[in-house]
């Protein structure tokens, strides 16, 4: 019985999201990395997808918490503390 020891381009692209999220097994991560080290096209796609993901997270997370919410939650927590005493 043979085991897979390398990925094709198609197999890497199919696993690209999981690779970016480090959600593959150690062996799969290594095989994907080996492929990306030697395939310029997949490496280019990987760099693009990684950058898109970083930019999406950065732009979506640019949020200021309203002071009114902080005050209201503080009041809820203070009320809960008083009840516990």
């Amino acid at each position, binding site marked *: 019985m043979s085991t897979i020891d390398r990925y094709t381009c198609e197999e890497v692209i199919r696993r690209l999201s999981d690779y970016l999220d480090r959600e593959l097994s150690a062996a799969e991560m290594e095989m994907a990395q080996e492929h990306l080290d030697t395939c310029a096209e997949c490496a280019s796609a990987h760099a693009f997808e990684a950058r898109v993901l970083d*930019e999406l997270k950065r732009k979506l997370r640019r949020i200021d918490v309203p002071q009114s919410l902080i005050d209201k939650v503080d009041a*809820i927590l203070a009320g809960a503390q008083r009840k516990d005493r």
Partner: protein
Amino acid sequence: MPAVLQWSDLLRLFAPLVTLATIDASRTEQATPAPQTLDGLLTPLLAGAYGLALRLLRNSADAQDLVQEAALAAARGFGTFQTGTNFKAWFFRILTNCYYSRHRRQRRQGTTADLDEVPDLYLYARAAEAGLHASPADPAQALLNRLDSAQIAGALQSLPQEYRVVSTLYLMEDLSYGEISDILRIPVGTVRSRLHRGRNILKKLLWQVAVEHGLVPDRDREQREHD
């Protein structure tokens, strides 16, 4: 004649006991975690909770209501939280449950058939067609620079709900698939597949937004006109 014990002898005799007592005390300190207060656990999560709520909902007032509702539910149910377990997962589960109970009727709202099948690397291929890869700058950066936060948030909010919640948790918080699975009480495999499809649909929606706003060339229209 009874031997007279000197002070130094006493110290030598009891030294092992003193050492044992010290070790036991330090072990006890390690074994028993410091008591966790709701205040101490929840306050550091507030910014993340509001960010998640804001991206799930349409406006700040609704997002603030949702976070307050979740904080109140957490205060009432804090007795059921098991010290030492993942508080973040516990609180975000409450938050998403509050969200679901408010917005259950919106399930599958906005789903369109053509969005269900978006190929991998959709955005990469579209950016290549539009000539962005030829740009000396980073092509992904060149594309994302044209979209502002509100446009990206709008695209995320127009995802079908089953993909929106998983994708929003993923994009707003650095959570593993396992943690998202724990929060939403769905299998890791379901998180993986929803996230995969959700991300692909989101990229298609982002491209559509960019085309609608004239930020990138509309190759489909150009092709239609050419034909």
